[in-house]
Protein backbone atom coordinates (compact mmCIF):
# COMPACT_ATOMS: atom_id res chain seq x y z
CA UNK A 1 0.00 0.00 0.00
CA UNK A 2 0.97 3.55 -0.48
CA UNK A 3 2.59 4.98 2.59
CA UNK A 4 3.63 8.41 1.49
CA UNK A 5 0.27 10.07 1.91
CA UNK A 6 -1.29 7.99 4.66
CA UNK A 7 -0.45 10.65 7.17
CA UNK A 8 0.44 14.24 6.52
CA UNK A 9 1.92 16.22 9.36
CA UNK A 10 1.39 19.93 9.54
CA UNK A 11 4.51 22.04 9.40
CA UNK A 12 3.73 23.35 12.90
CA UNK A 13 3.90 19.81 14.30
CA UNK A 14 7.24 19.19 12.62
CA UNK A 15 8.61 22.50 13.82
CA UNK A 16 7.50 21.83 17.40
CA UNK A 17 9.20 18.43 17.33
CA UNK A 18 12.39 19.99 15.98
CA UNK A 19 12.48 22.61 18.72
CA UNK A 20 11.94 19.93 21.32
CA UNK A 21 14.71 17.72 19.91
CA UNK A 22 17.22 20.56 19.48
CA UNK A 23 16.44 23.11 22.22
CA UNK A 24 19.73 24.99 21.79
CA UNK A 25 19.58 25.29 17.99
CA UNK A 26 18.38 28.35 16.13
CA UNK A 27 15.81 27.81 13.42
CA UNK A 28 14.49 30.61 11.24
CA UNK A 29 11.25 29.90 9.37
CA UNK A 30 10.40 31.70 6.12
CA UNK A 31 7.37 31.09 3.96
CA UNK A 32 8.02 31.10 0.22
CA UNK A 33 5.58 31.31 -2.67
CA UNK A 34 4.12 28.14 -4.23
CA UNK A 35 3.70 26.29 -0.94
CA UNK A 36 7.21 25.98 0.36
CA UNK A 37 8.67 26.71 3.78
CA UNK A 38 12.35 27.39 4.30
CA UNK A 39 13.97 26.38 7.57
CA UNK A 40 17.31 28.10 8.15
CA UNK A 41 19.70 26.07 10.27
CA UNK A 42 23.39 25.55 11.00
CA UNK A 43 25.31 23.09 8.72
CA UNK A 44 25.96 20.60 11.55
CA UNK A 45 22.20 20.36 12.20
CA UNK A 46 21.22 19.26 8.65
CA UNK A 47 21.95 15.60 9.16
CA UNK A 48 20.24 15.20 12.57
CA UNK A 49 17.20 17.13 11.33
CA UNK A 50 16.96 14.93 8.22
CA UNK A 51 17.22 11.85 10.47
CA UNK A 52 14.36 13.16 12.58
CA UNK A 53 12.22 13.94 9.51
CA UNK A 54 12.66 10.37 8.31
CA UNK A 55 12.22 8.58 11.63
CA UNK A 56 9.46 10.58 13.18
CA UNK A 57 7.52 11.98 10.23
CA UNK A 58 8.32 9.46 7.50
CA UNK A 59 9.37 12.22 5.11
CA UNK A 60 11.70 10.50 2.67
CA UNK A 61 11.09 12.44 -0.48
CA UNK A 62 14.10 14.65 -1.11
CA UNK A 63 13.22 16.40 -4.37
CA UNK A 64 16.69 17.75 -4.89
CA UNK A 65 19.54 19.69 -3.30
CA UNK A 66 20.29 23.16 -4.66
CA UNK A 67 23.79 24.54 -4.34
CA UNK A 68 24.01 28.30 -4.68
CA UNK A 69 27.13 30.45 -4.39
CA UNK A 70 25.47 33.34 -2.59
CA UNK A 71 28.52 35.60 -2.13
CA UNK A 72 29.02 34.99 1.59
CA UNK A 73 29.43 31.24 1.24
CA UNK A 74 27.82 28.32 -0.53
CA UNK A 75 24.16 27.87 0.35
CA UNK A 76 22.73 24.38 0.32
CA UNK A 77 18.97 23.92 0.06
CA UNK A 78 17.56 20.47 0.77
CA UNK A 79 14.12 20.45 -0.83
CA UNK A 80 11.97 17.87 0.97
CA UNK A 81 8.37 17.27 0.04
CA UNK A 82 5.33 15.74 1.74
CA UNK A 83 2.29 17.28 0.04
CA UNK A 84 3.96 20.64 0.71
CA UNK A 85 7.54 21.74 0.33
CA UNK A 86 9.92 21.80 3.30
CA UNK A 87 13.38 23.15 2.54
CA UNK A 88 16.36 22.93 4.88
CA UNK A 89 18.48 25.98 4.22
CA UNK A 90 22.10 26.11 5.38
CA UNK A 91 25.14 28.23 4.58
CA UNK A 92 28.67 26.81 4.37
CA UNK A 93 31.52 29.34 4.78
CA UNK A 94 34.12 29.40 1.99
CA UNK A 95 36.92 28.26 4.31
CA UNK A 96 35.02 25.14 5.37
CA UNK A 97 32.99 23.76 2.47
CA UNK A 98 32.28 20.42 4.12
CA UNK A 99 29.07 18.72 5.19
CA UNK A 100 28.23 15.09 6.02
CA UNK A 101 26.52 13.14 3.26
CA UNK A 102 22.88 12.04 3.48
CA UNK A 103 23.32 9.14 1.07
CA UNK A 104 23.33 6.48 3.81
CA UNK A 105 19.91 7.74 4.99
CA UNK A 106 18.52 8.62 1.55
CA UNK A 107 20.44 6.82 -1.25
CA UNK A 108 18.54 8.95 -3.76
CA UNK A 109 20.60 11.98 -2.69
CA UNK A 110 23.76 10.60 -4.36
CA UNK A 111 23.34 12.28 -7.76
CA UNK A 112 22.40 15.64 -6.25
CA UNK A 113 25.41 15.61 -3.90
CA UNK A 114 27.78 14.51 -6.64
CA UNK A 115 26.54 17.31 -8.87
CA UNK A 116 27.12 19.94 -6.19
CA UNK A 117 30.54 18.53 -5.35
CA UNK A 118 31.49 18.85 -9.01
CA UNK A 119 29.88 22.19 -9.78
CA UNK A 120 30.58 24.08 -6.55
CA UNK A 121 33.38 22.22 -4.78
CA UNK A 122 31.50 21.29 -1.63
CA UNK A 123 32.87 18.12 -0.03
CA UNK A 124 30.20 15.69 1.15
CA UNK A 125 31.92 13.57 3.78
CA UNK A 126 31.29 9.89 3.17
CA UNK A 127 29.94 10.26 -0.38
CA UNK A 128 31.18 7.73 -2.93
CA UNK A 129 32.27 9.51 -6.13
CA UNK A 130 33.13 7.11 -8.92
CA UNK A 131 34.50 9.66 -11.39
CA UNK A 132 32.94 12.78 -12.87
CA UNK A 133 29.18 13.16 -13.18
CA UNK A 134 28.41 15.76 -15.87
CA UNK A 135 31.77 17.37 -16.61
CA UNK A 136 34.18 15.93 -19.21
CA UNK A 137 36.95 13.52 -18.18
CA UNK A 138 39.62 16.12 -19.05
CA UNK A 139 38.00 19.03 -17.16
CA UNK A 140 40.51 21.45 -15.60
CA UNK A 141 39.21 20.87 -12.04
CA UNK A 142 37.61 24.29 -11.53
CA UNK A 143 34.03 24.65 -10.32
CA UNK A 144 31.71 26.01 -13.04
CA UNK A 145 29.02 27.50 -10.80
CA UNK A 146 31.36 29.33 -8.41
CA UNK A 147 31.00 33.10 -8.32
CA UNK A 148 34.62 33.95 -9.18
CA UNK A 149 34.31 32.00 -12.37
CA UNK A 150 31.06 33.73 -13.30
CA UNK A 151 32.55 37.18 -12.74
CA UNK A 152 35.67 36.34 -14.73
CA UNK A 153 33.66 35.37 -17.81
CA UNK A 154 31.33 38.39 -17.75
Amino acid at each position, binding site marked *: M*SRLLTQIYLFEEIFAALQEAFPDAEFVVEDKPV*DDTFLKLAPEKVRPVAELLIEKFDIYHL*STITGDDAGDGVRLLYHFWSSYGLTLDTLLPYDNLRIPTLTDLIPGAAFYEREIQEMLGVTFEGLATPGPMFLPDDWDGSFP*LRRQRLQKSQ
Partner: protein
Amino acid sequence: MSKITVPIGPQHPLLKEPLAFSLTLEGEHVIESAMRLGYVHRGIERLSQERTYVQNVHLFERVCGICSHIHTTTYCQGVEALLGLEVPPRGLYLRALLCELERIHSHLLWLGVQARNIGFDTIFMYAWRDREIVLDIMEDLSGGRVSHAVNIIGGVRIDLTTEHRDVILRQLDTLEPQIETLLDVVENERSFQARTRNIGVLSLEQIRRYCVVGPVARASGLDMDLRRDAPTPPYDRLKFRVPVRYEGDAWARTMVRMLETVESVHLCRQILTTLPDGPTSVRAKRRVPPGEVVSRAEAPRGEVIYYIRSDGSDKPARVKVRTPTLTNLITLPDQLQNISMADVSVVLSGVDLCIACADR
Protein backbone atom coordinates in the same frame (compact mmCIF):
# COMPACT_ATOMS: atom_id res chain seq x y z
CA MET B 1 32.67 -18.78 -15.17
CA SER B 2 34.75 -16.01 -16.65
CA LYS B 3 33.47 -12.43 -16.64
CA ILE B 4 33.09 -10.21 -19.68
CA THR B 5 32.52 -6.48 -19.76
CA VAL B 6 30.14 -5.19 -22.41
CA PRO B 7 30.04 -1.48 -23.14
CA ILE B 8 26.70 0.00 -24.24
CA GLY B 9 26.77 3.53 -25.56
CA PRO B 10 27.44 6.43 -25.52
CA GLN B 11 26.12 6.24 -29.09
CA HIS B 12 23.14 4.32 -27.94
CA PRO B 13 21.49 1.52 -29.82
CA LEU B 14 18.37 1.68 -27.62
CA LEU B 15 17.56 5.37 -27.51
CA LYS B 16 18.55 8.24 -29.73
CA GLU B 17 20.37 9.85 -26.84
CA PRO B 18 23.88 9.45 -25.46
CA LEU B 19 24.43 7.54 -22.22
CA ALA B 20 27.21 5.07 -21.53
CA PHE B 21 26.82 1.83 -19.64
CA SER B 22 29.44 -0.71 -18.81
CA LEU B 23 27.88 -4.07 -17.95
CA THR B 24 29.87 -6.89 -16.41
CA LEU B 25 28.39 -10.23 -17.40
CA GLU B 26 28.81 -13.69 -16.00
CA GLY B 27 27.47 -15.92 -18.73
CA GLU B 28 24.18 -14.32 -19.79
CA HIS B 29 23.59 -12.44 -16.56
CA VAL B 30 24.51 -8.95 -15.52
CA ILE B 31 26.38 -8.91 -12.24
CA GLU B 32 27.61 -5.34 -12.21
CA SER B 33 26.82 -2.12 -14.02
CA ALA B 34 28.33 1.34 -14.19
CA MET B 35 26.84 4.43 -15.78
CA ARG B 36 28.35 7.63 -17.19
CA LEU B 37 26.22 10.74 -17.74
CA GLY B 38 27.19 14.10 -19.14
CA TYR B 39 27.48 13.59 -22.89
CA VAL B 40 24.83 16.24 -23.52
CA HIS B 41 25.56 18.52 -20.57
CA ARG B 42 24.94 22.03 -21.92
CA GLY B 43 25.33 24.01 -18.69
CA ILE B 44 21.79 25.36 -18.87
CA GLU B 45 21.74 26.45 -15.21
CA ARG B 46 24.87 28.47 -15.78
CA LEU B 47 23.60 29.93 -19.07
CA SER B 48 20.36 31.05 -17.44
CA GLN B 49 22.30 33.42 -15.17
CA GLU B 50 23.43 35.42 -18.19
CA ARG B 51 20.01 35.76 -19.81
CA THR B 52 16.98 37.80 -18.87
CA TYR B 53 13.84 36.21 -17.45
CA VAL B 54 12.11 36.51 -20.83
CA GLN B 55 15.00 34.96 -22.77
CA ASN B 56 15.18 32.15 -20.23
CA VAL B 57 11.67 30.96 -21.14
CA HIS B 58 13.09 29.89 -24.49
CA LEU B 59 16.22 28.46 -22.91
CA PHE B 60 14.28 26.22 -20.52
CA GLU B 61 12.06 25.05 -23.34
CA ARG B 62 15.21 23.36 -24.60
CA VAL B 63 16.00 21.38 -21.44
CA CYS B 64 13.97 18.52 -22.88
CA GLY B 65 13.00 17.67 -26.42
CA ILE B 66 9.87 15.76 -25.46
CA CYS B 67 8.33 17.48 -22.46
CA SER B 68 9.43 21.01 -23.41
CA HIS B 69 6.17 22.66 -22.37
CA ILE B 70 6.19 21.48 -18.75
CA HIS B 71 9.62 23.06 -18.18
CA THR B 72 8.48 26.51 -19.28
CA THR B 73 5.26 26.02 -17.29
CA THR B 74 7.19 25.32 -14.09
CA TYR B 75 9.61 28.18 -14.74
CA CYS B 76 6.88 30.71 -15.59
CA GLN B 77 4.83 29.59 -12.59
CA GLY B 78 7.82 30.36 -10.35
CA VAL B 79 8.61 33.74 -11.91
CA GLU B 80 4.93 34.73 -11.80
CA ALA B 81 4.87 33.87 -8.09
CA LEU B 82 7.91 36.12 -7.53
CA LEU B 83 6.25 38.93 -9.47
CA GLY B 84 2.93 38.40 -7.67
CA LEU B 85 1.16 38.05 -11.00
CA GLU B 86 -2.29 36.58 -11.31
CA VAL B 87 -2.53 34.66 -14.60
CA PRO B 88 -6.03 34.82 -16.16
CA PRO B 89 -7.98 31.52 -15.87
CA ARG B 90 -8.13 31.08 -19.66
CA GLY B 91 -4.34 31.23 -19.80
CA LEU B 92 -4.01 28.61 -17.08
CA TYR B 93 -6.49 26.29 -18.80
CA LEU B 94 -4.67 26.54 -22.13
CA ARG B 95 -1.38 25.86 -20.35
CA ALA B 96 -2.85 22.74 -18.76
CA LEU B 97 -4.28 21.66 -22.14
CA LEU B 98 -0.80 21.71 -23.65
CA CYS B 99 0.58 19.83 -20.59
CA GLU B 100 -1.95 17.03 -21.07
CA LEU B 101 -1.45 16.83 -24.85
CA GLU B 102 2.26 16.62 -24.16
CA ARG B 103 1.70 13.78 -21.70
CA ILE B 104 -0.24 11.82 -24.34
CA HIS B 105 2.48 12.48 -26.90
CA SER B 106 5.29 11.54 -24.50
CA HIS B 107 3.65 8.30 -23.34
CA LEU B 108 2.80 7.19 -26.89
CA LEU B 109 6.34 7.95 -28.01
CA TRP B 110 7.65 5.92 -25.09
CA LEU B 111 5.31 2.99 -25.81
CA GLY B 112 6.67 2.91 -29.35
CA VAL B 113 10.27 2.86 -28.10
CA GLN B 114 9.51 0.16 -25.55
CA ALA B 115 7.63 -1.97 -28.10
CA ARG B 116 10.52 -1.62 -30.54
CA ASN B 117 12.99 -2.72 -27.86
CA ILE B 118 11.04 -5.86 -27.04
CA GLY B 119 10.66 -6.64 -30.74
CA PHE B 120 6.96 -5.87 -31.06
CA ASP B 121 7.10 -3.64 -34.11
CA THR B 122 3.34 -3.62 -34.69
CA ILE B 123 2.67 -1.69 -31.47
CA PHE B 124 5.57 0.60 -32.28
CA MET B 125 3.98 1.57 -35.58
CA TYR B 126 0.44 1.92 -34.22
CA ALA B 127 1.61 3.98 -31.23
CA TRP B 128 3.58 6.38 -33.40
CA ARG B 129 0.74 6.63 -35.89
CA ASP B 130 -1.63 7.65 -33.09
CA ARG B 131 0.95 10.07 -31.73
CA GLU B 132 0.72 11.98 -35.01
CA ILE B 133 -2.85 13.01 -34.11
CA VAL B 134 -1.60 14.67 -30.92
CA LEU B 135 1.30 16.29 -32.74
CA ASP B 136 -1.14 17.67 -35.32
CA ILE B 137 -3.32 19.14 -32.56
CA MET B 138 -0.28 20.79 -30.97
CA GLU B 139 1.00 22.07 -34.30
CA ASP B 140 -2.35 23.65 -35.10
CA LEU B 141 -2.43 25.24 -31.66
CA SER B 142 1.09 26.56 -31.43
CA GLY B 143 2.89 26.16 -34.74
CA GLY B 144 5.38 23.64 -33.37
CA ARG B 145 5.23 19.89 -33.03
CA VAL B 146 7.49 19.48 -30.01
CA SER B 147 8.82 22.95 -29.19
CA HIS B 148 5.68 24.99 -28.76
CA ALA B 149 6.91 28.29 -27.29
CA VAL B 150 3.41 28.73 -25.88
CA ASN B 151 4.24 30.01 -22.41
CA ILE B 152 5.17 33.59 -21.69
CA ILE B 153 5.63 35.09 -18.26
CA GLY B 154 2.07 36.11 -17.38
CA GLY B 155 0.13 33.55 -19.41
CA VAL B 156 0.17 31.97 -22.86
CA ARG B 157 0.54 33.55 -26.30
CA ILE B 158 -2.09 31.39 -28.06
CA ASP B 159 -5.87 31.48 -28.11
CA LEU B 160 -8.54 29.18 -29.35
CA THR B 161 -11.72 29.85 -31.37
CA THR B 162 -14.90 27.81 -30.82
CA GLU B 163 -14.52 26.18 -34.26
CA HIS B 164 -10.95 25.21 -33.51
CA ARG B 165 -12.07 23.75 -30.20
CA ASP B 166 -14.64 21.55 -31.96
CA VAL B 167 -11.97 20.33 -34.38
CA ILE B 168 -9.72 19.31 -31.47
CA LEU B 169 -12.62 17.55 -29.74
CA ARG B 170 -13.25 15.54 -32.93
CA GLN B 171 -9.55 14.65 -33.18
CA LEU B 172 -9.64 13.45 -29.55
CA ASP B 173 -12.68 11.30 -30.42
CA THR B 174 -10.57 9.60 -33.10
CA LEU B 175 -7.62 9.19 -30.76
CA GLU B 176 -9.37 7.71 -27.74
CA PRO B 177 -10.49 4.34 -29.22
CA GLN B 178 -7.00 3.89 -30.68
CA ILE B 179 -5.40 4.39 -27.27
CA GLU B 180 -7.94 1.94 -25.77
CA THR B 181 -6.81 -0.62 -28.33
CA LEU B 182 -3.16 -0.12 -27.38
CA LEU B 183 -4.10 -0.44 -23.70
CA ASP B 184 -5.91 -3.67 -24.46
CA VAL B 185 -2.85 -5.08 -26.25
CA VAL B 186 -0.54 -4.13 -23.39
CA GLU B 187 -2.90 -5.62 -20.83
CA ASN B 188 -3.77 -8.90 -22.56
CA GLU B 189 -1.21 -9.74 -25.23
CA ARG B 190 0.85 -12.71 -24.04
CA SER B 191 4.01 -11.96 -25.99
CA PHE B 192 4.13 -8.43 -24.55
CA GLN B 193 3.70 -9.79 -21.03
CA ALA B 194 6.34 -12.47 -21.56
CA ARG B 195 8.94 -9.79 -22.17
CA THR B 196 7.91 -7.35 -19.45
CA ARG B 197 6.47 -9.25 -16.47
CA ASN B 198 8.83 -9.53 -13.46
CA ILE B 199 11.56 -7.60 -15.28
CA GLY B 200 13.27 -4.73 -13.48
CA VAL B 201 11.21 -5.07 -10.32
CA LEU B 202 11.49 -2.25 -7.79
CA SER B 203 9.88 -2.55 -4.36
CA LEU B 204 8.07 0.32 -2.67
CA GLU B 205 10.90 0.51 -0.14
CA GLN B 206 13.50 0.99 -2.90
CA ILE B 207 11.28 3.55 -4.62
CA ARG B 208 11.04 5.60 -1.45
CA ARG B 209 14.72 5.38 -0.56
CA TYR B 210 15.75 6.48 -4.06
CA CYS B 211 13.12 9.30 -4.06
CA VAL B 212 11.79 7.99 -7.40
CA VAL B 213 9.00 9.98 -9.06
CA GLY B 214 6.38 9.67 -11.77
CA PRO B 215 5.03 6.56 -13.47
CA VAL B 216 7.99 4.46 -12.26
CA ALA B 217 7.04 5.24 -8.65
CA ARG B 218 3.32 4.80 -9.31
CA ALA B 219 3.95 1.37 -10.85
CA SER B 220 5.47 0.26 -7.53
CA GLY B 221 2.59 1.50 -5.43
CA LEU B 222 3.72 5.00 -4.47
CA ASP B 223 0.57 7.05 -4.88
CA MET B 224 2.03 10.44 -5.68
CA ASP B 225 0.99 12.86 -8.40
CA LEU B 226 1.61 16.56 -8.00
CA ARG B 227 -1.38 17.44 -10.16
CA ARG B 228 -3.54 16.02 -7.37
CA ASP B 229 -1.33 16.37 -4.27
CA ALA B 230 -0.10 19.93 -4.79
CA PRO B 231 -2.54 21.21 -7.37
CA THR B 232 -1.89 24.45 -9.18
CA PRO B 233 -4.90 25.91 -10.98
CA PRO B 234 -6.74 24.62 -13.00
CA TYR B 235 -5.97 21.09 -11.72
CA ASP B 236 -7.78 21.81 -8.45
CA ARG B 237 -10.98 22.18 -10.51
CA LEU B 238 -10.54 19.16 -12.80
CA LYS B 239 -11.54 15.59 -12.05
CA PHE B 240 -9.14 12.75 -12.86
CA ARG B 241 -7.90 9.46 -11.49
CA VAL B 242 -4.27 8.70 -10.68
CA PRO B 243 -3.53 5.14 -11.85
CA VAL B 244 -1.40 3.15 -9.39
CA ARG B 245 -0.20 -0.43 -9.69
CA TYR B 246 1.70 -2.55 -7.21
CA GLU B 247 3.71 -5.05 -9.30
CA GLY B 248 6.67 -2.70 -9.77
CA ASP B 249 7.88 -4.35 -13.00
CA ALA B 250 8.24 -3.14 -16.58
CA TRP B 251 4.72 -4.29 -17.39
CA ALA B 252 3.20 -2.28 -14.52
CA ARG B 253 5.06 0.80 -15.77
CA THR B 254 3.57 0.32 -19.23
CA MET B 255 0.09 -0.09 -17.74
CA VAL B 256 0.40 3.02 -15.56
CA ARG B 257 1.52 5.10 -18.54
CA MET B 258 -1.24 3.84 -20.80
CA LEU B 259 -3.93 4.38 -18.16
CA GLU B 260 -2.56 7.88 -17.66
CA THR B 261 -2.82 8.52 -21.38
CA VAL B 262 -6.52 7.66 -21.29
CA GLU B 263 -6.95 9.97 -18.27
CA SER B 264 -5.16 12.74 -20.12
CA VAL B 265 -7.57 12.47 -23.06
CA HIS B 266 -10.43 12.90 -20.58
CA LEU B 267 -8.65 15.86 -19.02
CA CYS B 268 -8.19 17.52 -22.42
CA ARG B 269 -11.92 17.15 -23.05
CA GLN B 270 -12.75 18.58 -19.63
CA ILE B 271 -10.44 21.54 -20.19
CA LEU B 272 -11.87 22.25 -23.66
CA THR B 273 -15.49 22.06 -22.58
CA THR B 274 -15.03 24.18 -19.43
CA LEU B 275 -12.59 26.69 -20.95
CA PRO B 276 -13.35 30.06 -19.30
CA ASP B 277 -13.61 33.25 -21.35
CA GLY B 278 -11.36 36.25 -21.00
CA PRO B 279 -7.78 37.25 -21.74
CA THR B 280 -5.01 34.64 -21.97
CA SER B 281 -2.18 36.66 -20.47
CA VAL B 282 -1.25 39.73 -18.46
CA ARG B 283 1.73 42.04 -18.91
CA ALA B 284 4.73 41.22 -16.78
CA LYS B 285 7.45 43.60 -15.57
CA ARG B 286 10.95 42.91 -16.83
CA ARG B 287 12.59 43.32 -13.43
CA VAL B 288 11.70 40.78 -10.80
CA PRO B 289 11.69 41.83 -7.12
CA PRO B 290 14.25 40.05 -4.87
CA GLY B 291 13.10 36.75 -3.48
CA GLU B 292 13.23 33.04 -4.00
CA VAL B 293 10.71 30.43 -5.01
CA VAL B 294 10.43 26.66 -5.33
CA SER B 295 8.14 25.65 -8.18
CA ARG B 296 7.01 22.08 -8.83
CA ALA B 297 4.94 20.43 -11.54
CA GLU B 298 4.11 16.92 -12.73
CA ALA B 299 5.84 16.23 -16.04
CA PRO B 300 5.07 13.09 -18.07
CA ARG B 301 8.04 11.45 -16.31
CA GLY B 302 7.28 12.75 -12.81
CA GLU B 303 8.06 15.67 -10.56
CA VAL B 304 9.96 18.62 -12.06
CA ILE B 305 11.33 21.15 -9.59
CA TYR B 306 12.70 24.63 -10.27
CA TYR B 307 14.37 26.79 -7.66
CA ILE B 308 14.62 30.43 -8.73
CA ARG B 309 16.40 33.19 -6.80
CA SER B 310 16.06 36.78 -7.87
CA ASP B 311 18.34 39.64 -6.80
CA GLY B 312 16.06 42.38 -8.14
CA SER B 313 17.56 42.67 -11.63
CA ASP B 314 16.20 41.45 -14.95
CA LYS B 315 18.35 38.31 -14.80
CA PRO B 316 17.90 35.45 -12.33
CA ALA B 317 20.70 35.05 -9.76
CA ARG B 318 20.33 31.28 -9.67
CA VAL B 319 18.01 28.77 -11.29
CA LYS B 320 18.23 25.13 -10.32
CA VAL B 321 16.47 22.56 -12.46
CA ARG B 322 15.88 18.99 -11.37
CA THR B 323 14.30 16.79 -13.98
CA PRO B 324 12.51 13.50 -13.18
CA THR B 325 14.86 11.36 -15.28
CA LEU B 326 17.89 12.22 -13.14
CA THR B 327 16.07 10.86 -10.09
CA ASN B 328 14.83 7.74 -11.85
CA LEU B 329 18.23 6.91 -13.40
CA ILE B 330 19.66 6.13 -9.98
CA THR B 331 17.54 2.98 -9.77
CA LEU B 332 19.12 1.44 -12.88
CA PRO B 333 22.05 -0.40 -11.19
CA ASP B 334 19.53 -2.09 -8.85
CA GLN B 335 17.21 -2.99 -11.72
CA LEU B 336 20.00 -4.37 -13.89
CA GLN B 337 21.33 -6.67 -11.16
CA ASN B 338 21.04 -10.36 -12.07
CA ILE B 339 18.91 -9.92 -15.16
CA SER B 340 19.57 -11.57 -18.50
CA MET B 341 21.42 -9.56 -21.14
CA ALA B 342 18.37 -9.84 -23.40
CA ASP B 343 16.25 -7.94 -20.87
CA VAL B 344 18.64 -5.00 -20.49
CA SER B 345 16.91 -3.05 -23.25
CA VAL B 346 13.50 -3.54 -21.62
CA VAL B 347 14.79 -2.28 -18.27
CA LEU B 348 16.65 0.70 -19.71
CA SER B 349 13.72 1.99 -21.71
CA GLY B 350 11.28 1.01 -18.93
CA VAL B 351 12.23 4.03 -16.81
CA ASP B 352 11.57 6.33 -19.81
CA LEU B 353 15.02 7.82 -20.10
CA CYS B 354 15.42 11.36 -21.29
CA ILE B 355 19.13 11.96 -21.14
CA ALA B 356 19.00 15.54 -22.40
CA CYS B 357 16.76 16.28 -19.40
CA ALA B 358 19.04 14.56 -16.93
CA ASP B 359 22.23 16.22 -18.21
CA ARG B 360 20.84 19.71 -18.75
